[in-house]
């Protein structure tokens, strides 16, 4: 169906939607650090989607190379994030975000 053929704009809108979802997820989530982690990764992935889409659009490989690098980075980031999460849990016994307010002002 020619009308349903996804164009660049659709991909970009999808990526933008993903970005918005993840931002809302970060701001609105007040309980669970794990969800926060997922939302943060989603930001990077939405950008990745852009890269791939543009890469295809321009028929230029560098965007996809970038996406690969980003994927690797995302993985490392998750690892660091999870490690911190474990530390927090070990120290506190929970992973609630609201308790992270010792330092303020």
């Amino acid at each position, binding site marked *: 169906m020619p009308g349903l053929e996804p164009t660049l704009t659709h991909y*970009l809108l999808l*990526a933008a939607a993903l*970005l918005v979802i*993840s931002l809302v997820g*970060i701001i609105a989530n007040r309980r669970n*650090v794990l969800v*926060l*982690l997922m939302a*943060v*990764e989603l*930001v*990077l992935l*939405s*950008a*990745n989607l*852009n*890269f791939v*889409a*543009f890469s295809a*659009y*321009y028929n*230029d490989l*560098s*965007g996809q*190379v*970038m996406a690969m*690098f*980003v994927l690797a*980075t995302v993985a*490392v*980031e998750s690892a*660091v*994030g999870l*490690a*911190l*999460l474990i*530390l*927090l849990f*070990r*120290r*506190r*016994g*929970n992973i609630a975000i609201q*308790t*992270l307010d*010792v*330092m*303020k*002002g």
Partner: protein
Amino acid sequence: MTFSLIPLLPELTLLAALSLILLMVALYPSQDGTAAYRLTQLALWVALLALWLTQDIEEPQLIMNGMLLRSTSTLLMQSAALLALSLALLYGRASLIRQKLWQPETFMLFLCSTLGVLAVIGAYHFVPLFVGLELMALPLYAMVALRKDDALSIEAGLKYFFLGALASGFMLYGISLVYGATGSLGLLAIAHLAEGFGSSNTLLLLGLIFIVAGLAFKLSAVPFHMWAPDVYRGAPTLVTLFISTVPKLAVVVLLLRLMSGPLSSLLTEWQTMLALLAVLSMIVGAVVAIAQPNLKRMLAYSTIGHMGYLLLGALVGNTDGSSAAMFYILTYALSNLVAFGVLLSMNETSDGDSKNADGKITLSRGSDLEDFRGLYQRSPIRAVLMTLAMLSLAGVPPLLGFYGKFAVIAVALINGFVWLSIIAILTSVIAAFYYLRVVRLMLFSSRSEGEGEGEILPAIGVIPRTVLTLNGLALLALGLFPSVLLDTTAQALAWTFGLL
């Protein structure tokens, strides 16, 4: 397609040291940090040497297929980064031992992050640039939370991680939009392509906005600054020093590079956005710092303010502005090193260590302003050095910090940013108040009770003390002969401009 690895020698040195430490840890799991520390210092100096030996400073050159740039300005900033880390480690050595962080892993993280810094300073392509940024940032998250049993450290680490990741996301998103607008990831190519767009290209503009947001986070410019006070406060002081100095060098180069090269066609938009960030940073940095009872936290706001001044120079968008901004960050780094050097020589204890999550967590001692009360009587050298650092940060002549402010405000005013300049001077008066408060506490007040002094003020080793003193005196000496640094920066930029 052949290329030489020789220009990469500095990075490779750090990488080699990193691997070596990793190997050592694998082989001798129970060893302390002494060997790793020495190896790190060695690697830093070898890298510095390599940097100077392998550079052809006359001509800027793109290496690795246009991925990396080697020029006088990268040479200057990379040297500064390496030197800053070396000094920071020297000052923080005793502190690491006291805080039970004297482990090889610590140094691996520092090396890793510094490798990222070098990469960012050199990057002339978005791939190494992004990878460098992540390489710089990811170890930092871990470093902040390095004190695994300290609630503050963990809290700071988590905050930094999530916000940093978000900022990376912004940055990446912005890069993707720029890629979308131009179809290229190489900065040189983008510069050529973007020239034709003007400011009408929506994608490019959106991309710029996201990139600015990402950069603003790294610089801790308002309103992307919220992480800074908490992270500065919670991180081990050495890490705080590192965060406040070394990555900033890289980010400033990145900012100036993007602004002058690839995205220079959007100069007006840059200026508008940076002006907003600069004003907010100067005001928030100056005003909020006044109410801080903790020196590390106060210095976080001080950094925020300083980034505002730096942006003031940067937003001018010409050679003068760039060299002023670069000069500014160098003066800031040198002054900051002294301030943190003194702070690192104090013994920080955290009462939060033993409490669990349900109990109220009292904040630690050793970095509160109150701990500096009457410092001159107890440790004149610390007090004098801290005074020099504070006055330099406040920008009082004839100390080095004055010339930094001089350069950025001069450039901004001459180029017509009058109101920004006026805000800059008003905020620097407010800022002077809190810097002076530290001086006042140290020199003019006396401490009534005498307990716990030895605990807070351990002896400083001969070498750190000497180097710290020299560093402090350098603030004065460079203040008397500012041309040494100013000309270096200006020439470095003059020779590389257009290919910053």
